[in-house]
């Protein structure tokens, strides 16, 4: 009979190792364990993807381009170029003779024929481009010179680390792009870093800031464009929404462009309110601080009744969480706590040690905490801890359903905002809709003859 937890994995699961809740994390995935993680290329691609008027060329065989084509819910107010997939679609002969020529020719063709005319191209090197030794930096340099546009190489072979390394590569690419704009004069306004405008979330945050009198200069990278990105160096402050992917960029902008940054979070009432106050206070204008407080008060009073309406049907329910980063897990545990729910399973793909410490403290006393979990472990612990709902990515959804467990989509493909005050309503409503759906009754009950 099969087991549910590999010996080697026990160190990453609370109460199955000698350290109790101090689990092992930030390690390479275990071969054959069916990790839910993606790769370096994925990390770089998702951070840069929302730059709407860029041509994102995936240099490699077709698969990587095919599986990342327009799969994320980042919205645009301008160009839709980013929703296309461009790939050099390398074949057997290219592998043998090298793909540099094809890449050059591909850029030539884009410059000659593509509408709208490219101003910015990102070239991603995937596993194979790395292994066959294509010098994509040289190709990009030559193309930039030839056409007088920006062509930025992103060397992201999948095997060269984990997804967070890809984030870092993307941040470096953005810095390479905007550094030439460093000498513009400053304006009163902020940049939003690390929000990807999933279901318009950047727009929501931006609307709050503008309402309280804070102009938003550039958004990196939700609904970004070349022109807007180039204005980023003029901001007086950077706001970092997704710390995991963008702190590194903020740090570089601080040391190289002297733009200070503060971290913010717009998930849940408390985080949203605190972040609004913090941004307003940071800019040192009392009238803005006052407006921030007024806005938060008004919007909170609108949202609280919605939460109160659903709370009775959610109190005491048991949640399992398996998401990408540690901060999202923490934020979710808190939101569940506020709804009177318990978190009984909590895991992430790439959480850090400190984050797990907080997760342990916040989650239910009997909760199991696990890093880089696989389907077998999720199955075992969700059943063992009698979870009522799983929050996770699309791959986990069918598993939850098969186990008779409700599911909340908190991933990058969703089409409903979960940030800001609008997002709180969506979240509570979704959790209610799935946990209390009438379908579970029919799945769990039925005449004796119908049981398989």
């Amino acid at each position, binding site marked *: *009979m*099969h*087991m549910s937890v*590999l010996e080697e994995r026990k160190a990453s699961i609370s109460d199955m190792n000698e350290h109790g809740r101090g689990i092992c994390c930030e390690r390479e995935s275990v*071969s*054959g*364990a069916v*990790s*839910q993680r*993606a*790769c370096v*290329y994925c990390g770089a691609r998702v951070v840069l993807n929302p730059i709407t008027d860029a041509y994102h*060329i995936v240099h*490699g065989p077709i*698969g990587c*381009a*095919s599986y990342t084509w*327009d799969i994320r819910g980042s919205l645009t107010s301008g160009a839709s170029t980013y929703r296309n997939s*461009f*790939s*050099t*679609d390398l*074949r057997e002969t290219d*592998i043998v003779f090298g793909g540099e020529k094809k890449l050059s020719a*591909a850029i030539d*063709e*884009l410059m000659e*024929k*593509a*509408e709208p005319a490219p101003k910015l191209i990102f070239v991603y090197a*995937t*596993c*194979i481009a790395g292994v066959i030794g294509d010098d994509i930096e040289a190709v990009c340099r030559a193309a930039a010179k030839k056409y007088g546009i920006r062509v930025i190489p992103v060397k992201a*072979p*999948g*095997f*060269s*680390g*984990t997804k967070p390394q890809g984030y870092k590569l993307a941040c470096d690419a953005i810095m390479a792009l905007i550094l030439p704009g460093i000498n513009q004069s400053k304006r009163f306004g902020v940049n939003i870093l690390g929000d990807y405008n999933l279901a318009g979330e950047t727009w929501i945050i931006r*609307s709050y800031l503008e309402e309280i009198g804070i102009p938003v200069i550039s958004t990196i990278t939700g609904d970004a464009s070349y022109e807007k990105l180039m204005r980023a160096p003029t901001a007086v402050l950077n706001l970092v929404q997704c710390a995991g992917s963008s702190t590194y960029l903020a740090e570089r902008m601080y040391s190289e462009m002297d733009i*200070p940054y*503060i*971290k913010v979070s717009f998930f849940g009432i*408390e985080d949203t309110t*605190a972040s609004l*106050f913090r941004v307003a*206070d940071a800019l040192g204008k009392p009238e803005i601080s*006052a*407006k921030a407080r007024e806005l938060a008060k008004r919007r909170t009073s609108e949202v609280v009744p919605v939460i109160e309406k659903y709370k009775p049907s959610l109190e005491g329910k048991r949640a399992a969480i398996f998401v990408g980063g540690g*901060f999202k897990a*923490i934020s979710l545990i808190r939101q569940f706590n506020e709804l009177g729910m318990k978190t009984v399973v909590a895991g992430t793909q790439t959480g850090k040690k*400190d984050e797990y*410490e907080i997760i342990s403290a916040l989650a239910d006393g009997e909760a199991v905490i696990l890093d880089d979990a*696989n389907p*077998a472990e999720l199955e075992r612990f969700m059943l063992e801890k009698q979870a009522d709902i799983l929050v996770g*990515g699309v*791959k986990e959804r*069918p598993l939850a359903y*098969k186990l008779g467990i409700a599911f909340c989509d908190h991933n990058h493909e969703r089409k409903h905002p979960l940030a800001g005050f609008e997002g709180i309503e969506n979240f509570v409503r979704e959790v209610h809709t799935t946990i209390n759906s009438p379908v579970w009754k029919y799945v769990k009950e039925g005449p004796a003859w119908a*049981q398989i």
Partner: protein
Amino acid sequence: MGANLVNLNVNPCKMCMPMGAVSALCGIKGCMSILHGSQGCATYIRRHMATHYNEPVDIASSSLTEEGTVFGGEANLLKGLRNLIDLYAPEAIGVCTTCLAETIGEDVGAIVKKFYEQNPGTGVKIIHVAAPGYGGTQNEGWFAAIRAVLEQTEQSTAPNGKINVITPMISPADTRWLKDLLNGAGMDFILLPDLSDNLDGVTEKRYNRLKTGGTSLSDIAKMAGARLTVEFSEFTDEKASPAAYLYETYRVPYVKLPLPVGVRGMDQLLTTLEDAGGAVTVDMIKARGRYLDAMVDSHKYCAKARAAVFGEPDFVTAVIRLCCENGILPLLAATGSVSPRLKELLDAEFEDYKDFYPAEEMAILDDSDFDEIERYCRQLGVNLLIGSSDGRRIAHKLDIPLIRCAFPIHDYVGGQRVRMLGFEGSLNLLDQSANCMLEKTETGFRGALYDRFFKTRPAPPADIHAKTASHPCFGEHACKNARVHLPVAPKCNIQCNYCLRNFDCMNESRPGVASKILTPAEALERYMKLKESMPNLTVVGIAGPGDALANFEETRETLRLIREYDADITFCIATNGLMLPMYVPELKKLGVSHVTVTVNAVDPSVGAKIYQHINYMGKTYTGTEGASILLANQLAGIKMLADADIMCKVNCVALKGINDSHIFEVTKQAAALGAFMTNIMPHIPVRGSSFEALDRMTNMEIKAIREVCGVNIKQMAHCRQCRSDAAGTLDEDISIHLREKPASETRPYKRFAVATKSGAIVDIHFGHAKEFYIFESDGEDTRFVETRKVSRYCNGLECDDKEDRWESVIGAVADCEAVLALRIGLVPEKRLKENGIDAIATYERVETAVTLAARERSAMNGIA
């Protein structure tokens, strides 16, 4: 795009070999797959499949890293195989290579051999499939996996009388249908692969992570002893075809059939089965009859269809043939695979039907992408797409219906239940095609014929009366409906003696006043926000604070933006009428249905007393000259409004001793020019204006004038004289809530330093903090001050020294009462204490933690 690039694939109409290989392996009983490559391949493929099939899809990865790539991935793969066995206890494991493993030259056969040597007695059958991503598409990967399974299974050649059935990638539901058909025909068969249960499972009491369906290894081992192989593919060559392999190696005869779609496809299959000793049952014949009957029923609707079909070659060929049989014009056949044979087969097919489609060209593309497909769809006038959901972007862009019946389907549910095989499946496709055409006709033909043959002039909007009835000002019984006035028009082109426009008076409520001017974009935002909270909002008005038409650019842009967002909302504007004749046609175009014109006099000598001056066409006019120009334009404008079917209300400000005896004339003229109603309202004396000393007329006096004028024209009796940024119903103006409040007063605050990584929570050890978030709090209000980098407080040249580091940390927080961190060591705590700084350990939200800390300290100090 539509640029047709040669060196660049734009929007791929294909996936990679590993995808096809692992899909096929899902149809083998007790089989798990591991992809030998980097972690991303497995994760992306799982996501792609899970979203289509709505089933858990567990695929392992050998998770190759930099080291594995340089020194070989043998150790990773050996460990991965052991782990997979531990976790799933599979009967078989398919090891599929990827781009990476193939390029670094992994000898998977040797690694598998080594695994058997190291792990004797596992009893697990390991099959390796060479599947470089650049070697072909999912179609090639699918057949490569089936062939590898056959090649690596020890076969029993003893004749068993069975027939082998091999399919390309078909849906689980179609697979179930195929099994039912073969059973119904009384065939003893081995189907390879069989996805029917594994990728379309049932809800069970106990979940089995190792799926229990699929073709068993023991059945596969008997395939060499079968009497016939039926392979549903016209595109596998001898090197790739599993049937050809069984013939070459074991002399099992084979037939290759097209997918059983349409009359010919199904007839070929049934004939083959009959020849092989199977029974064509009455049910099958009836199904055929029903399909033919339906073809006849639908043929005229289908004749309107101009189809583009895209996907794998066998799928495309089968669907194009179905189109041809039914009179659906097949304009485009496209595949992402390299397949010159597609053109051969379909050219022949089209030749057979060319009499029915005179003068039509069909495009057949292989190695294509969606950019090219889109270009052809535009050129050829395609009106029906058939394929995977990857065609949805073209469908949305060109407004063409898409029938989703191939992998992957990501935007609809039911990918696992697609039915297109057999008479029933074909009928499903046929019905969907015919219904797409019927839907198109049904929704469009009335308007199209009306536009073409009846429409001679733009018709007046049919809903003008409904709009009037729901307008809180024009309609008498619409008091429950709300309106919003958007203050986008600051400038005015006349100066009335009773008016002084002033933007910042919070408590004033009268026309011409607004707290803040909005840009058109802000106006749209305000509207959207209000509309959400106020479903009874029926009217958007622009009433200044200046004159709507003196700021026509802003007015036009605002209305245009809102119309884009909301097609139904009633537009209303208010004006003094000076620019009205110039803009009536544009107002009509913008969809303005209601206009209020303020006419205080119809005699220039009376007007001269009311209007100080007017600015018209760049010149200022005063006295009767100014009043005459204004009057002429007002009257012409009102007439033009009436002719354009725009409801016009005439407002008249009653000014005691100036025009009160003249108002009867005003209303009479308004009626004669076609105005809908007049609104006589008392003047509100405003300090600083010329008429500040003029007495306001009493309600009784106004009522009396209205009664007299009622003989001329309908009178508005419910005016609230609203502000130009009013919002809500007439009786409940909520605009005050939209405005800003002044900042509260400052209180004594204490400073706190917070160690945080996420920024939201106190989530980092004191010793690890590279920066601190500084706050001020009085225990209730907490304000952010700044972030401080520890490194910037370093005195020495190097900050590596531990002692220097402490100095800089303390420097960074020197002015704070306390430091908040996830944890803090005893030594640093002591150092802080020495400097009069407390240390607090917490994992609260940042702002909450600071507020609590400040509150506690106030309590301790006895201040609270």
